[in-house]
């Protein structure tokens, strides 16, 4: 069982990601719709893992990732994005993202990354 935070401005994107997370695993989920909400929620909810979109109005996912990693250098953040350009992936990896999953989320890919991140006690 893990605490999982989902940050995406799109209700449909949050809904589609939640549909990929096994319901019987007892994970506790919280969601937000932009980067600034992510930072607040990160501090109150203290998630084990965060799924973060990149392209959001207001504070985007890159800025939120940077801020969260400053708050907690051990934060585990999986980027879930439509922007799958090589340079974008390099950038978020440099900023400490654990993994990049492309949209739309596919159950197998989400579970594989989630299991990998949760099994890895040593954070990035």
């Amino acid at each position, binding site marked *: 069982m893990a605490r999982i935070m989902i940050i995406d401005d*799109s209700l*449909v994107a949050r809904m*589609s990601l939640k549909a990929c997370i096994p319901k019987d695993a007892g994970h506790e989920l919280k969601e937000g719709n932009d980067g600034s909400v992510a930072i607040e929620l990160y501090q109150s909810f203290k998630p084990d893992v965060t799924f973060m979109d990149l*392209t959001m109005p207001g504070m985007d996912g890159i800025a939120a990732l940077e801020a969260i990693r400053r708050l907690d250098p051990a934060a585990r953040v999986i980027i879930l994005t*439509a922007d*799958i350009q*090589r340079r974008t992936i390099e950038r978020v990896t440099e900023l400490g993202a654990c993994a990049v999953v492309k*949209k739309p989320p596919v159950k197998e890919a989400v579970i594989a990354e989630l299991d990998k991140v949760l099994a890895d006690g040593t954070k990035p």
Partner: protein
Amino acid sequence: MTDSARELTELEKDALQEIMNIGFGRAAADLAEIINLHVILSVPHIAVLQSDEVIRYVQEEIPDTTDMSMITQFFSGKFSGGSFLVFPHGEGRKLLKIFDGEMSLLGENYDIDILEKETLVEVGNIIIGACVGKIAEMLGDVVTYAPPRFFSQEQIYGTLGSVLNTSDSFAILFKTVFNFEQYNVSGYLFLVSQYSIMPWLKQAIAEFLGPYE
């Protein structure tokens, strides 16, 4: 068509925005591979508007077209409509590097205005093709394209006006702002589709949402 069939629900709009987001993201990744162009895209905006409201909307976004150029390209399929890519005038010179890295053509007897125009048309064609194609693919469709056309400055609103006046009274507007990072070039991409695609569009959105409900 009933009133509910004339509108997109909030969930459908959100789904369409997400489909555009994914479509543009994939298109951007392809562009990065094909022409080494890293593209930053804004959150897309979607609205169902009357034709005259589309022109007003574009005018609010781009109040002065004195220094703008526009590439239009029409597409047809179940997803059909027109795409309008609006750049600040003169940006073609920066983008020329995509095709002529050494800018060697500038040293030859080519008319720079024609080179700029041809560059914008070619870049426009690639971007529109990638973006529209990916969105159509996400919606389970394949589209065909008419050749791209170039319009400058004062021709822009005349062209938009004539296109929108001959289409349905309502239009579905899709807008994104893009930025080619390494060239410091920004522009707008508007897709305008006819109201008549609405039944198909709603069905395609429902099919996209199906696995997640």
